[in-house]
């Protein structure tokens, strides 16, 4: 049996109209020009999406891509201009922690109020109350007004309430990075528990790392349109691609306006080769990987450096270094140069990786970042999985005979 759909989004579009004037006076004064004072744009265009129960779906895209709008449409906070959304089961939306908190009420009163807002009845809250307080770790202050809380205590209590409301569907908007490190671990453990219990999570995040680690499906949005829907690793590549497309468009626009962006170094050409590769270009274990960065200095430049980083498909940095650490001094005069870096007898595990290249002045300002500048793939081999490969030896030996046997 296929898993049932929990969210069904059909041809949803959302138009925002921006009024530039809010008061009667302005509206009357601008009556004849009313059209001019209205700006509209489509935050979502014909989005159709079915989300199956038990999946964790990430919504990514850069600012203004419509991902938060889509989350709000699913949550019912914003009504779509056209199209339908349907949903089943209890939903909890973590769009902002402590949205319903009243500063003048005590922690205890706010727990009850906020659980009611998230859909729990009073008796259900009674049942969860101790667990919530325990999770938040602020027992001593529960009867203090929340306006006296530190910001950390505030979000911890809010998060504790939100994860205890027992939702079938959890909508999360950038709120997972709260509190100190132990609390963050607790949050991630709670999310993992949610996943294990077969609940559905839809989350909006800027952190590629988080999305890569949590989601089984990622939707990439750009300008309200769906660029990609499916495999997370692929999605993050698409997202990066769209970032650099954006950059290219930005530059073209500047050029069209007759004020091209001032470059001191042209966009570098990066290539990856290896001492041992198969026909498809997959790099063999333990080979030497050569990364070549070919760049052109267009005018005399202040002292600068190049950084090279290797990242996994989901965006975790495996390794990074700069020319300064290598002890290389980059030439400052105009001309075309190539920086060759060799990673000897590489220890990378099987999978695909990307190379990103950054250029910056030694004083600190960034010249440009190209991410990804190139990609390569490493053959899977040996035992174990991961971004690095370790040589493994193992053995099992008996430390002590079973106690039961010794007694008899």
């Amino acid at each position, binding site marked *: 049996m296929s898993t049932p759909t929990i969210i069904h989004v059909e041809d949803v579009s959302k138009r925002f109209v921006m009024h530039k004037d809010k008061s009667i006076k302005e509206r009357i004064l601008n009556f004849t020009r009313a059209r001019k004072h209205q700006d509209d744009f489509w935050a979502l265009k014909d989005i159709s999406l079915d989300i199956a129960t038990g999946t964790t779906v990430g919504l990514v895209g850069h600012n203004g891509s419509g991902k938060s709008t889509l989350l709000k449409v699913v949550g019912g*906070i914003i009504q779509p201009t056209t199209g*339908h959304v*349907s949903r*089943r089961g209890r939903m909890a*939306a973590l769009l902002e922690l402590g*949205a319903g908190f009243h500063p*003048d009420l005590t922690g205890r009163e706010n727990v009850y*109020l906020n659980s009611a807002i998230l859909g729990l009845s009073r008796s259900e809250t009674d049942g969860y109350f101790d667990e919530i307080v325990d999770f938040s770790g602020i027992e001593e202050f529960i009867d203090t007004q929340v306006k006296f809380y530190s910001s950390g205590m505030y979000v911890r209590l809010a998060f504790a309430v939100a994860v205890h409301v027992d939702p079938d569907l959890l909508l999360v908007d950038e709120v997972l990075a709260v509190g100190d490190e132990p609390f963050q671990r607790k949050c991630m453990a709670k999310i993992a528990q949610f996943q294990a219990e077969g609940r559905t999570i839809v989350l909006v995040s800027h952190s590629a790392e988080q999305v890569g680690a949590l989601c089984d499906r990622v939707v990439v949005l750009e300008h309200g349109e769906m660029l990609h829907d499916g495999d997370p690793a692929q999605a993050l590549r698409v997202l990066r691609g769209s970032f650099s497309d954006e950059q290219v468009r930005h530059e073209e626009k500047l050029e069209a306006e007759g004020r091209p962006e001032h470059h001191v170094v042209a966009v570098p050409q990066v290539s990856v080769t290896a001492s041992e590769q198969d026909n498809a270009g997959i790099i063999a274990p333990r080979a030497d990987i050569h990364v070549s960065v070919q760049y052109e200095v267009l005018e005399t430049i202040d002292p600068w450096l190049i950084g090279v980083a290797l990242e996994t498909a989901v965006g975790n940095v495996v390794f990074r270094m700069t020319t300064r650490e290598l002890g290389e001094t980059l030439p400052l005069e105009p001309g075309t140069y190539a920086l060759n870096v060799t990673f000897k007898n590489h220890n990378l595990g099987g999978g695909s990786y990307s190379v990103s290249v950054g250029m910056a002045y030694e004083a600190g300002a960034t010249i440009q970042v190209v991410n990804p500048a190139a990609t390569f793939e490493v053959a899977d081999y040996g035992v174990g999985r991961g971004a690095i490969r370790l040589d493994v030896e193992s053995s099992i030996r008996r430390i002590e005979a079973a106690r039961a046997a010794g007694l008899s």
Partner: protein
Amino acid sequence: MEDLKPVGQSTRFVTGTWTSIKDVWASRELTSLLVRRELKARYKDSSLGIVWSLVRPLAQLLIYYFAIGEILGLARSIPSFAIFVFVGLTTWGLFVEIVQGGTTSITNNAGLIKKIYLPREIFPLASVGGALFNFGVQLIILILATIVAGQIPMDFNLLYAPLSLAVLIFFATGLGILLAGLNVYLRDVQHLVEVAIMVLFWASPIVYSFSFVHDKLQGNWLEQLYLANPITVAVLGMQRAFWVAGTTESTSQNWPDDLAIRLWIALGISIVILWIGQRIFSRIQGNFAQEL
């Protein structure tokens, strides 16, 4: 497994009403929590607490009693002037609090509305709840006052009270919900409401009795217009119920003869206003989150 349910409110005029009522009913527990939140937060950290909800109407009572009753001499033709004014002020206060609280209820809860979906009607309804609580406290004072004055309202006229209150509550809630929605789009509404309330105060027999109006207009069309105001008939009904001296000691006509019928008609109209107000609210509430 539950069925897939459409998200958001139905904007259909007739069928949507039922879903709206169901949604609001399902959130009644939350509504009562919101009422309590407002009341608790209002008087937290003040040592007199709830007493403050009485100070304002009592101060108003004193002002009108001395300024209009004693100095302008109205108390001579209106027996038990203090009770008369207090009945009017209490009733009027309920109306003002529902309408004013309702108008700003959505904008004041912007933080919640932008982040969580709840049936939005519960915010104006929560201000109705808060207003009713304050009204209840004042009503107890009023009843105590009538006992002290020896004019205990213990006859059939008391039945005017629930009917008048129903008119007032439905009418004020309807206006409150409608204005709450409009205020999101046009913030001028809340200032307009303040002015309108100031004017309307004198359009109902609160500090003067209906007999003054009747003596002057003699039942002509202007008087009918005056009586077409649901607040006016509600105030008259409350006076009929609680102002015993108006029936026993006064010879002038302090209310129209057909007050009961007028109240029933006003109730019908108020319910229709509430219904239309809610439907308009429901139609425009889809864009609240982005307009706030």
